[in-house]
């Protein structure tokens, strides 16, 4: 079925734009960049329709990539229903965001560079999704990390952007360290990295080892999917262009951790402790991020913490054994969070770069289309009944309820907070009085609005249109939780309550927030400053590391030991060379004499050794 065409198309776009884009006009860059991604999307559709119902796994082997001893890694791609969902989400939403970016990036420098990176990201993301073994997946994993770094630091003349890029890259390395260890363990235990092989043998493996593997894999997923304790990079990543935030840091890349965890479900189902850890980390992340989100004023920061929080939900779903619910939420989240970011981007675009919500307000009448789609997205994330978020979030909460009631209640509370802070942002942006300085907020061009509208439709109806748990029943074990009306109603009610509270505080009585902030100053400062996590990390991890490196590694090991060894070797070599130098007389006849002498010796030793009979 030529699966390889799917990632290769964006790669071709990357190569063409990256190598020659400097000389292309924007129209040509657009043609290659968007064309390649849309073609990839169409090719996905054709492939999936060609594969029919996809009851099992369809694998393609291209060549043996690494052959070393017992290690044999093939460049293999495979497709099952899970992959199909991911492929559609990545290429579909990717296409929409690419189209959107035409409008958004129209006035930015480095136009071709942006699209080249974006295409490269698509290539790696599709490789990650299509991979049939952990190593190919890891290639995509690292590749999307690289693209994330490049795109966060896209405005490389801003220090904050490059710092954010570095932070994302370094924090991800920590997670990748766990992933690598997990891969080593997998290879050691199973002798292979192929999914099929590993999962077939996993049930027979010792539980302790599986737990270790699971936790290490989860550690990698925490890095990529911004979970506690490695979530700190994602809010900073908002320094990149907004389409990047939407595509990479909301819809696709950050969900790679969830995807990978779901992909390894066999390992997790045999390692219950690891699953618990995932669930606990997920719920903690969801809760903490939601609280931070309550007090942020930067519109993109709000959605960034919201993303972290929603990813935490997905982890809860996966950790509770409801893998399909996690993927379900992954998809709906891709719809509405992409829409939220793109809408925020449209707002920022219309205000010529203003991101502070305190300088917005009253935009509902000036940019009605943007307002409308943002409303749809906010409803979806708040879990308003029968929007997409409602279905997926309820599926997760039901699984959590089945697992442990306290998980469910924390989840519900977080859902309420989510609804609150999303609508807080919505109301602060679109209601009330305009507080900004830009005189003519303008509606976005159609090229930006059309993707927004499509995503709005998906946000509202996506959960109903694509019943992921039903579709994935061949992949994952059945979820024991049944649909219960009670918990569903409670969760919906929490969402509605949050919305109402936000309406009360930010539309009806705008004075309340300030009084709360001054009333509970301690808590407010705490969450406004994100629990001082960055500062704690800096004090606990970064400073000692830098200091230790300076004293021990640099002064001690490098200057003392390594330089000493190197200089010592140099001095020895010089000494030996001084002796040997005598032989290098520069006189050809002397050399010839030595050669003749040497050949005499060779003959002599040959005779002694008996070679000459």
């Amino acid at each position, binding site marked *: 079925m030529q699966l390889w065409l799917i990632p290769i198309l964006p790669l071709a776009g990357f190569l063409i734009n990256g190598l020659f884009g400097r000389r292309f006009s924007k129209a040509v860059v657009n043609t290659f960049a968007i064309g390649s991604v849309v073609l990839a999307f169409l090719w996905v559709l054709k492939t999936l329709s060609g594969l029919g119902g996809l009851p099992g796994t369809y694998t393609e082997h291209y060549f043996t990539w690494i052959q070393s001893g017992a290690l044999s890694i093939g460049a293999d791609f495979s497709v099952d229903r899970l992959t199909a969902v991911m492929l559609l989400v990545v290429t579909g939403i990717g296409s929409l965001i690419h189209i959107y970016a035409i409008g958004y990036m129209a006035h930015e420098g480095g136009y071709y560079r942006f699209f080249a990176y974006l295409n490269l990201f698509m290539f790696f993301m599709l490789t990650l999704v299509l991979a049939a073994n952990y190593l190919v997946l890891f290639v995509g994993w690292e590749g999307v990390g690289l693209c994330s770094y490049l795109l966060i630091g896209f405005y490389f003349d801003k220090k904050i952007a490059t710092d954010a890029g570095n932070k994302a890259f370094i924090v991800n390395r920590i997670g990748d360290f766990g992933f690598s260890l997990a891969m080593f363990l997998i290879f050691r235990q199973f002798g292979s990295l192929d999914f099929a092989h590993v999962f077939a043998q996993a049930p027979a493996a010792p539980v302790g080892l599986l737990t270790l593997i699971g936790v290490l894999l989860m550690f990698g997923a925490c890095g990529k999917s911004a979970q506690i304790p490695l979530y700190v990079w994602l809010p900073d990543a908002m320094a990149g262009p907004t389409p990047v935030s939407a595509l990479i840091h909301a819809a696709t890349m950050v969900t790679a951790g969830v995807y990978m965890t779901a992909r390894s479900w066999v390992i997790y189902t045999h390692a219950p402790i690891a699953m618990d850890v995932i669930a606990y980390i997920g719920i903690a992340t969801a809760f903490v991020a939601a609280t931070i989100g309550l007090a942020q004023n930067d519109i993109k920061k709000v959605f960034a913490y919201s993303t972290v929080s929603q990813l935490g939900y997905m982890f809860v779903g996966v950790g509770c054994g409801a893998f399909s619910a996690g993927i379900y939420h992954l998809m709906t989240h891709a719809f509405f969070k992409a829409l939220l970011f793109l809408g925020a981007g449209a707002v920022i675009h219309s205000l010529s770069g203003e991101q502070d919500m305190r300088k917005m307000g009253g935009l509902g009448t000036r940019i009605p289309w943007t307002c409308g789609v943002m409303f749809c997205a906010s409803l979806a994330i708040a879990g308003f009944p029968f929007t997409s978020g409602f279905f997926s979030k309820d599926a997760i909460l039901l699984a959590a309820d089945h697992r442990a009631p306290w998980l469910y209640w924390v989840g519900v509370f977080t859902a309420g907070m989510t609804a609150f802070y999303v609508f807080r942002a919505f109301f602060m942006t679109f209601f009330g009085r305009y507080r900004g300085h830009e005189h003519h907020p303008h509606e976005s061009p159609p090229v930006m609005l059309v993707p927004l509208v499509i995503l709005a439709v998906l946000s509202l109806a996506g959960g109903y249109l694509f019943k992921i748990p039903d579709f994935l029943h061949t992949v994952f074990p059945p979820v024991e939780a049944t649909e219960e009306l009670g918990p569903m109603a409670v969760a919906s009610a929490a969402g509605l309550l949050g919305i109402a509270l936000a309406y009360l505080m930010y539309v009806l009585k705008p004075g309340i927030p300030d009084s709360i902030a001054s009333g509970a100053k301690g808590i407010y400062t705490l969450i406004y400053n994100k629990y001082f996590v960055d500062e704690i990390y800096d004090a606990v991890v970064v400073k000692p590391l830098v200091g230790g490196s300076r004293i021990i590694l640099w002064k001690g090991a490098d200057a003392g030991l390594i330089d000493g060894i190197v200089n010592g070797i140099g001095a020895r070599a010089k000494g030996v060379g001084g002796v040997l130098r005598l032989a290098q*007389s520069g*006189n050809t*006849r*002397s050399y*010839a*004499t*030595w050669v*003749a*002498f040497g*050949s*005499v010796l060779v*003959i*002599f030793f040959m*005779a002694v050794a008996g070679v*000459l*009979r």
Partner: protein
Amino acid sequence: MDLIVFLVFAVIAVVAAINVVVQRHPISSAVSLIGVMGSLAVLYLLLGAEFIAAAQVIVYAGAVMVLFVFVIMLLNAGTETRTGRSFIASLLGVPVLAALLAMLAYFTARIYPRGTEVRFGGFRGGTAEAVGRALFTTYLLPFEITSILILIAIVGAIVLARKELE
């Protein structure tokens, strides 16, 4: 008859070779070397290598040595001057050479006792046809590679010896 031919030309070869080494003037050495090559060609004929004998004269004596003579004439190289710079060569040279010759002679005599004898016509596989056939079948690849070698040598020689264009 064969013995006489061998002795005559072997003696010529050795005397000429000694002359190559002891003559002070390069052109005398060159002429002596031509003598060595010519007598070796006759010995090749004796060993049944008629093609190689012809090639020896054409290539070695007729082309390579002409180049040598040419360069000697071009540079107008005079008799060499004595400059005893190589302590090693004067110290080790004679003993090493004596040892080399002694060892070669000793092992030749030990490995090849007087059993095999050479007589003219004892080997008929050295005709131009036989050599050509082997050259263009079994040894085609090395043969073709030598053509590349020669091409490189031509280019190298031209580049080295051309007048500076700048």
